């Protein structure tokens, strides 16, 4: 029987190997990536089986005990996230297969590096290792953003690079100070040895600022809308759904596990306030946007705000963390579907200015339906995954009589309803005049990829007993 945790690491190694081979043989990148996704399903299934029965699964790399060596572990939450990343990866790979039919073969190695980085980030238990994985994800994301080579994409990628690198270095400074103050970078050892100390506070402060910059939380969200709007559709889907969630997950692990002893309620209040501001700001900006992809990008700013808004609830309420994870997963699935649908619209109409889409949307029924299903989950209407996540959070917020958080969750849904129904209403415009309107039917698989992912976002709300049980396996995040 191989060491436990081997399956988790295979999920990092398979994409790396595929990245190599697809770089070596550029013309067959698409098929290689598709094979990688299919092959990765096997270790993922074995990991799920192992975690479902024995809880957390971990492995000391190189055989060295932490804190000297690096430990890699996957508990219930990590396995759930790995499955969501895999599912979205499958959808995006199928979609990109047709989207990049002949052009930009280097998309495939970059996507494989991104996937490897994301998986490594989820399973790593070592602060310095997280720096390297975040850098892997960041570089791949920036390269993918600038893939089209258009001027606005390059400007957006430029701004994204600078903020991403600065954020990573601030995080690195925090890691260095943590090592200096507490003598280790392994999370488990740190969670026992960390005591209040000025260096500890500064380290956590630096790391938090770095992670907030990379996760585009409210004050530092300026780089996100141009980057996600100008990237090619499958890339903006990956960025919005997965890439910006990485820094949030690290921050959550730091605040709730590693540094849980020195995080004060006031700190939680500040980050929750920023989250609330992100919800309101992102939604209001999304409502006034004139272009579809930019609207969806601002919606990401808002939806990310929920995750930070609800962070303080996990301190006292165990199923608040399940709520956050379900919300994160539902948003990831729905947002991917929205961006893929936007890609279909762009493919069909050549532009994504909302006003002129009246004649396009009615002729893309499957895409319109995907937008509707995804929109239901983004708003948080039952029976979607978004609703279930919000419901768990509202109940735990009321339980802790954090009335502000509960109200913001509900108000956020209403604001989201406004900008989502702005898109859905286009499908019912009833003007299908075909004269003088460029319409180029996108391939069926691109439309159906968006639909299936949106369906999963809704399904998450219905068949949620299994995911919630999985998340609770292997130690909860609450301190």
């Amino acid at each position, binding site marked *: 029987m191989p060491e436990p945790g081997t399956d988790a690491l295979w999920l990092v190694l398979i994409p790396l190997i595929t990245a190599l081979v697809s770089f070596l043989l550029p013309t067959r990148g698409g098929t290689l990536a598709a094979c990688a996704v299919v092959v990765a399903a096997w270790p993922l299934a074995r990991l799920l089986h192992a975690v479902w029965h024995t809880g957390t699964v971990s492995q000391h790399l190189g055989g060295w005990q932490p804190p000297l060596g690096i430990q890699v572990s996957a508990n219930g939450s990590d396995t759930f996230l790995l499955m969501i990343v895999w599912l979205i990866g499958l959808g995006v790979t199928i979609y990109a297969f047709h989207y990049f039919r002949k052009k930009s073969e280097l998309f495939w190695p970059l996507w494989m590096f991104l996937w490897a980085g994301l998986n490594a980030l989820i399973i790593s238990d070592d602060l310095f290792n997280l720096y390297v994985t975040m850098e892997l994800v960041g570089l791949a994301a920036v390269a993918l953003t600038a893939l089209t080579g258009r001027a606005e994409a390059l400007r957006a990628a430029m701004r994204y690079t600078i903020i991403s690198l600065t954020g990573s270095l601030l995080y690195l400074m925090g890691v260095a100070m943590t090592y200096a103050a507490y003598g280790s970078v392994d999370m488990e050892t740190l969670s026992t040895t960390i005591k209040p100390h000025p260096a500890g506070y500064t380290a956590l402060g630096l790391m938090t600022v770095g992670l907030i910059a990379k996760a585009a939380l409210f004050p530092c969200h300026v780089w996100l809308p141009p980057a996600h709007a100008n990237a090619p559709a499958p890339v903006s889907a990956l960025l919005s759904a997965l890439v910006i969630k990485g820094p949030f997950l690290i921050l959550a692990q730091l605040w709730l596990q590693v540094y849980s002893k020195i995080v004060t309620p006031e700190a939680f209040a500040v980050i929750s306030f920023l989250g609330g501001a992100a919800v309101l700001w992102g939604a209001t900006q999304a409502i006034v946007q004139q272009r579809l992809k930019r609207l969806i990008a601002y919606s990401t700013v808002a939806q990310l705000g929920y995750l930070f808004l609800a962070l303080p609830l996990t301190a006292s309420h165990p*199923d608040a963390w*399940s709520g956050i994870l379900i919300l994160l997963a539902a948003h990831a699935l729905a947002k991917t579907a929205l961006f893929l649908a936007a890609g279909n619209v762009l493919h069909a109409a050549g532009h994504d200015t909302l006003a002129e889409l009246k004649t396009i949307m*009615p002729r893309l*029924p499957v895409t319109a*339906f995907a937008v509707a299903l995804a929109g*239901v989950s983004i*708003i948080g*209407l*039952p*029976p979607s995954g978004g*609703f*279930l996540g919000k*419901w*768990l959070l*509202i*109940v735990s917020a*009321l*339980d802790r009589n954090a009335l502000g958080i*509960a*109200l913001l969750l*509900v*108000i956020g*849904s*209403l604001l989201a*309803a406004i900008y989502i*129904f702005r898109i*859905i*209403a286009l499908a*019912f*415009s*009833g*003007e299908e005049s075909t004269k003088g309107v460029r319409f180029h039917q996108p391939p069926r698989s691109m439309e159906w990829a968006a639909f299936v992912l949106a369906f999963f976002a809704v399904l998450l*709300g*219905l068949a*949620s*007993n299994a995911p*919630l049980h999985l998340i609770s396996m292997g130690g909860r995040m609450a301190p």
Partner: protein
Amino acid sequence: MNDLQILLPLILFSSFFTGVIIFFLGEGNHRSRTVLNLLGAVLKILLVLQLLDGVYHQQVYQSQLVLAPGIEIVLTADALSVFFVTLSAFLWLLTTVYAIGYLEQSPHRSRFFGFFSICVSATTGLALAGNLITFLLFYELLTLSTYPLVVHKGGARALRAGRIYLRYTLAGGAVLLFGIAWLQNLAGPISFTEGGALSPLAENHRWELQMIFVLLILGLGVKAAIVPLHGWLPNAMVAPAPVSSLLHAVAVVKAGAFGVVRMVYEVYGIDVARDLNLLHPLAIVASITIVYGSIKALFQDELKKRLAYSTVSQVSYIVLGTAIFGPVATIGGIVHLFHQGIMKITLFFAAGNYAEGLGIHRVSQMDGVGRKMPWTTLSFSIGALGMIGLPPLAGYVSKWYLQKGGIEGDEAWISLVLSMSSLLNAAYFLPILYRAWFKTGTEETERSRKRRRPAWWMLVLPPVTTALFVVYAGAFAETPYSPLQWAKMIADREYTP
């Protein structure tokens, strides 16, 4: 899974799957779509009849899907839910027949019938909901599935009506969500129990329960079109006739009223509601709505708008019935749930026929319509007279019980409100009847246009059937299988425990 557990999901999914399959049917094949539609509707009615029989013999149907700890989707069939399910299943069949005839050449029919069936399954789910969460889930699903129907015609006016509709219903949904979350936080997951589930909590959470009740009523009031929240209903009349008939006369509006009945009787319990003195303000609000709706209806020249305002006032009869303490008023309120449904749908069918057959949209154009479309106008008159409360018809039964309940529950002013409202009903219905029967129409050519419509019988049969049923429900109220008997059964289950 013995048949006790399988029946409810079967009823729910019989219409849901027809809807989903229809979505995938191409726009072209009308025949298979029509067959599928009718098959789904008939199948549903058969299942509902079996359910009706089961519940009548005290059998308990329950099926459960655990979403998460504290969140379960529960479907139960108690007397009240079966009452509403029978109504919606029966009227769904009739409206399907009517819609097939009505939308003969119009575009997007697959989309229409798909959402139409999903909307009915949402209504059924709402009726069969066993706890608050399931009720909320189907309540919001109802909003989602009705929006595409309201904006079905496309074009600026329909989209504007859609926006207004969403503004009200989503806001209402959010308030309801907040109320239910607060209630769940206080009392844990609540399931509907006859006689109320909150009695233990009443003493020490007095203020909070009152606040929650206000939130719940606000959330439900949007769909029940209680006065300040009724703005969307008249605007939604831009939708095609089958939509306004089933949805705005039966499904959506009834969902709100049904919700109020559930909250008062099966969540709070009538006694708890009384000593938290929630009933009195509710009765006042309902009365204001009744009178306001009737007055507004007077000034509407557009026929469908007038009917819309009449719905606003009529639905509040149900709310009024629940707001008066006492079994008799409850019977009046619950039976009106059924009666108002069949009466109002007859009127909307007739209005649709006038618009489709003769191109008449305004009351002022309805001179001499009786001769041109005798059957439709006959059923319209039966419906209208029922609304006014003429003795042999269904309306009279519910108003009589409401009045009697009002007097018994020493709320004498109720009978004043009811009689005033009946006067107003007469004021806005009788002129229509007078115009239709006794005035002579001018253009003779109109008559020929109607004949050319192919499936004209599909437009006439439904209103006539519902009109007959109005007569049956009124005249034969005392027979064992009438809506009144069923309402009595519900009422005494609410009060006896």
